[in-house]
């Protein structure tokens, strides 16, 4: 076998320029796939970490059954009561995979500066729990400043955060006072004073003129209820999300609690849409790379077969079987694929290094602030694409190699 590998390698080296161009095509294809995969991995992991940690939503959210369906028209009819909350906290808090459990109540209403009023959409959270969730996130995300001003506090329920657009619309700055109004769960209008503790950029540009973050106590006071609309669960390991969801669902059902559990993927529409979009782009890119690699290899091996017709005839005359001829060119092609992939690995590494050193930033669609642009090195994708390129190169060599193997020996020997 070593002789055939040696022979294949030497034949590639003998036609250095042609082999080099084919390796370059494979290498660039490999790098294109891996750099793009590295970029999408950065996007996906960024979206994942932002949803789970930065926004403090955790991995799982538990809702009263019906909240996500009929409850959209009248959410107050599908709130989790204090007794249900207690049951959920007991069950989920007792699971070893669970790191933290925290309640949430989203509210809507009007915010007024005394002269003008505008709609707000607020998320009522336990500030200390949200901070604890952020603390579990990646170090790179913990360093990012999320707001101007001071932190919200569990006990100071009137201290709230406003999206910069909302604050600007109402002419509110840090320390300003305003009034939030909303109907309670029983339908009466309620109003509470707020003080602007912080301003922040909404993750979604469309929400930047209406988003608020308020302590859970404030949201419950404004709605005049002890209920919540969901319980967020942070897990110790993201990979356990689905397993814990199933187990939690089983345990809660056994306890007689009618809840629906959604994972972070299900609740982050941006993640799913972005993933779908990148999957389609990847398919286009992959198809182009596939065609380039296959055409390059077929061309290279086809030329080699043509140039070495007499050699093929000689080998057949010396007793090499047809399979041996196919194997010879398949090895040559696999070596091309391997060398091209290794070249591509170097290109990918260089791209990663340049991005790492240059630290470019960009503003992704629907995001209001500049974020660092990264390209991740994804070992699984690198290994998979290396194997794929070798197999693809090998497969692409089969038609010309088969043609070589089926040549008439006498005609091959007479070929000049």
């Amino acid at each position, binding site marked *: 076998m070593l*002789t*055939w590998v*040696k*022979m294949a390698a*030497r*034949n590639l080296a*003998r036609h250095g320029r042609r082999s080099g161009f084919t390796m370059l095509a494979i290498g660039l294809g490999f790098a294109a796939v891996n750099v793009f995969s590295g970029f999408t991995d950065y996007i996906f992991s960024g979206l994942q970490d932002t949803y789970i940690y930065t926004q403090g939503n955790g991995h799982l959210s538990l809702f009263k059954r019906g909240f996500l369906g009929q409850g959209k028209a009248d959410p107050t009819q599908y709130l989790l009561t204090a007794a249900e909350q207690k049951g959920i906290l007991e069950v989920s808090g007792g699971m070893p995979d669970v790191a933290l459990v925290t309640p949430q109540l989203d509210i809507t209403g009007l915010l007024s500066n005394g002269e003008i009023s505008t709609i707000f959409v607020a998320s009522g959270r336990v500030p200390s729990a949200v901070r604890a969730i952020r603390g579990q996130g990646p170090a790179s995300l913990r360093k990012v400043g999320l707001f101007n001003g001071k932190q919200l506090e569990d006990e100071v329920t009137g201290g709230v955060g406003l999206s910069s657009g909302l604050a600007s619309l109402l002419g509110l700055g840090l320390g300003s006072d305003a009034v939030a109004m909303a109907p309670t769960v029983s339908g009466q209008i309620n109003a509470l004073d707020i003080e602007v503790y912080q301003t922040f950029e909404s993750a979604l540009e469309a929400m930047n003129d209406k988003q608020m973050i308020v302590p859970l106590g404030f949201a419950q006071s404004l709605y005049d209820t002890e209920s919540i609309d969901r319980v967020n669960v942070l897990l110790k390991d993201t990979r356990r999300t689905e397993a814990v969801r199933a187990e939690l669902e089983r345990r809660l059902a056994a306890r007689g609690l009618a809840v629906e559990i959604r994972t972070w993927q299900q609740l982050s529409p941006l993640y799913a849409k972005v993933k779908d979009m990148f999957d389609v782009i990847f398919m286009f890119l992959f198809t182009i790379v596939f065609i380039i690699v296959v055409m390059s290899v077929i061309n290279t091996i086809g030329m080699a077969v043509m140039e070495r017709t*007499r*050699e093929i*005839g*000689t*080998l*057949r*005359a*010396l*007793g*090499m*079987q*047809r399979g*041996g001829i196919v194997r010879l060119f398949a090895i040559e092609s696999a070596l091309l694929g391997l060398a091209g992939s290794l070249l591509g690995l170097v290109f990918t590494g260089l791209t990663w290094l340049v991005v790492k050193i240059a630290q470019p930033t960009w503003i992704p669609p629907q995001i209001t602030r500049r974020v660092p642009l990264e390209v991740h090195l994804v070992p699984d994708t690198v290994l998979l694409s290396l194997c794929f390129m070798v197999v693809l190169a090998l497969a692409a060599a089969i038609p010309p190699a088969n043609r070589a193997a089926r040549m*008439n*020996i*006498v005609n091959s*020997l007479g070929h000049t």
Partner: protein
Amino acid sequence: MALVELRQVCKRYTLGETSIDALKNVDLDIEPGEFIAAWGPSGSGKSTLCNLIGLLDEPTSGQIRLEGQDPFGISDMERSRLRNCRIGFVFQGFNLVPVLSALDNVLLPLQIRGRVSQQDKAKALHYLKRLGLDNHIGHRPQKLSGGQQQRVAIARALITEPALVIADEPTANLDSVTAAGIIALMRDLNRQQGTTFLFSTHDQRLIQQVDRLIHLRDGAIEADDRLAPEAGPAVQSCAA
């Protein structure tokens, strides 16, 4: 039993609507240890005869037997094995693999068969040494002269200890001194090892050395002359 038997062998080539009979009803027996040449003008059927006996091509009709076996009644795979084991080839253009050293070229038929042992390497070195190539073992063909390349090709043909070596115009691309050396070398190997040699040639120097001369004309045997009948040593058996 004859090493090679041809009975009423015909070979017809068809090119479009034109058919050419390259061999017509050829009957021929080649005995083990013979040093035999097929000669005749261009297009007389010498190379076709060599190709059929070398199992490189199939007859249109008639029967060929190699060591009593019908080589065309078996699969291509088995025929390849038979060629590898029982037949050695020496080509006019040497046909060495350019990316392999002289030693690797000699070992090529054994490599095709499977693993190459240290014993095989020793045998290849022995042949190269015997053919005066001990200083060129690691050289690739482009570093060797025509005569040296042909000697490597002869060593390659002999490494499997075949029953028959077929040499198609082996001296055509060599100068007269080198050609004479190659002819003498093959004659020695025939006498010492008993290897059967079948040549297709125009070379008078080679023709003068053979035991038997088959004169072909228009695809038929015109004359079959035994020039210097000599009993060679017994043919060595080939390890399958």
